[in-house]
């Protein structure tokens, strides 16, 4: 019963590729945003966190439309990417990865921010008095202590990217083998006669991936908390 056809494998493979790239792409800016939001007070901070968390509450189709206007072939960002790097994201899998990264960013930043906030800054001060400069304190104290949250954030972002539908189909459409990721393939199968079988198979697969991601990230969060509790 659980034999996947080549077309279904293609959708699964594409979703994996999009999920991995979007997670890798959003890790550096995601961590930077999480660190800034966790550690600094500045004017317009709530505006910044509002922008980061916006894709969480906005209808995905609106996020997709904004991406289309910005990163489409005639959009300012899309033109810049093409002129400077020769990269086109509109209607390409790279665009699907971009849309997925934007949609996964709030989940990633939230998990990372919580774990950075849980790192006691007094430990960093202790490390400075022991002769460590700011960067060494960051890499030997702050980063390892927040690592469970970083991993949890990456897992959540990957799971979100793996199954992102609304922004992706709005931004890069539904092109088999290029932008037809797993949820879009499910949607397409449901549009065709006899498509219910493949749709259900892919749906089960995505349930498994999502549940595994949630369990994995919660396990990481618990580890972070217990580690910090035993340190008093």
């Amino acid at each position: 019963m659980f034999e996947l056809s080549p077309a279904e494998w293609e959708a699964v493979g594409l979703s994996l590729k999009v999920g991995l790239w979007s997670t890798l792409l959003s890790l550096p800016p995601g961590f930077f945003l999480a660190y800034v939001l966790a550690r600094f007070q500045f004017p317009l901070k709530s505006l910044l966190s509002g922008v980061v968390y916006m894709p969480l509450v906005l209808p995905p189709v609106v996020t997709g439309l904004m991406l289309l206007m910005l990163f489409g072939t005639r959009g300012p960002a899309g033109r810049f990417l093409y002129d400077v790097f020769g990269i086109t994201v509109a209607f390409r899998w790279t665009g699907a990865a971009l849309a997925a990264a934007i949609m996964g960013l709030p989940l990633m930043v939230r998990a990372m921010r919580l774990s950075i906030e849980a790192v006691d800054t007094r430990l960093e001060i202790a490390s400075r008095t022991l002769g460590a400069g700011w960067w060494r304190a960051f890499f030997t104290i702050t980063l390892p202590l927040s690592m469970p949250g970083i991993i949890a954030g990456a897992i959540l972002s990957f799971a979100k990217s793996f199954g992102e539908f609304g922004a992706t189909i709005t931004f890069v459409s539904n092109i088999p083998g290029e932008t037809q990721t797993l949820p879009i393939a499910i949607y397409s199968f449901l549009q065709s006669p006899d498509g219910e079988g493949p749709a259900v198979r892919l749906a089960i697969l995505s349930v498994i991936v999502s549940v595994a991601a949630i369990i994995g990230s919660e396990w990481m969060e618990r580890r972070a908390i217990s580690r910090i509790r035993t340190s008093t």
Partner: protein
Amino acid sequence: MSFDVDVELRRGDFALAVAFQASTGLTALFGPSGAGKTSVLNMIAGVLKPARGRIAVDGQVLFDSVAGVNLKPEHRKVGYIFQDARLFPHLSVRDNLLYGYKLTGAAGRYAAPDHIIEVLGIGALLERQPGSLSGGEQQRVAVGRAILTSPRLLLMDEPLASLDDARKQEILPYIEQLRDDVKIPILYVTHTRAEVDRLAAAVIGIENGRVTS
């Protein structure tokens, strides 16, 4: 060896203006809670910036508001033992002890790990994680960790305050031995008379941000 402190700080209603000198041996900074004792240590360590003043150890200026000198904490060679031990929870006792030791240039080292571990009686704890240690054990490791950076000045901020009486009695002999072992000035903050009487060669009283004696 000696050091000079002359600092001022303002924080809302609280004004602190403290000047004193101290030399090799243990000097107690004695006064009630909220007198500004910890602020003085933080300014010497470089984690709190005075509004005005000068701090020098052995003639080297750590901070001077007039000359515009403000060394970073990692460049001050000042050891700091906090009230809460602040061991790094993700590192073993051994890695905690050697954290600052490894960052100290071989030429400037006077404290050897084997010797300090023996003096503090923590040889059996080296492979443990900080979370599994008692409060007294954690504080002994924190003392060792600071000493192993071979500081030229040691700051101790109520190192016994979070411990019960039995633990205090357990640690006091180690602090005494250390005081006689390393030939550097130790500035010891406390609000307990008994600790002053037992440990200190000199006493500086602080109340409401002013030196009283």
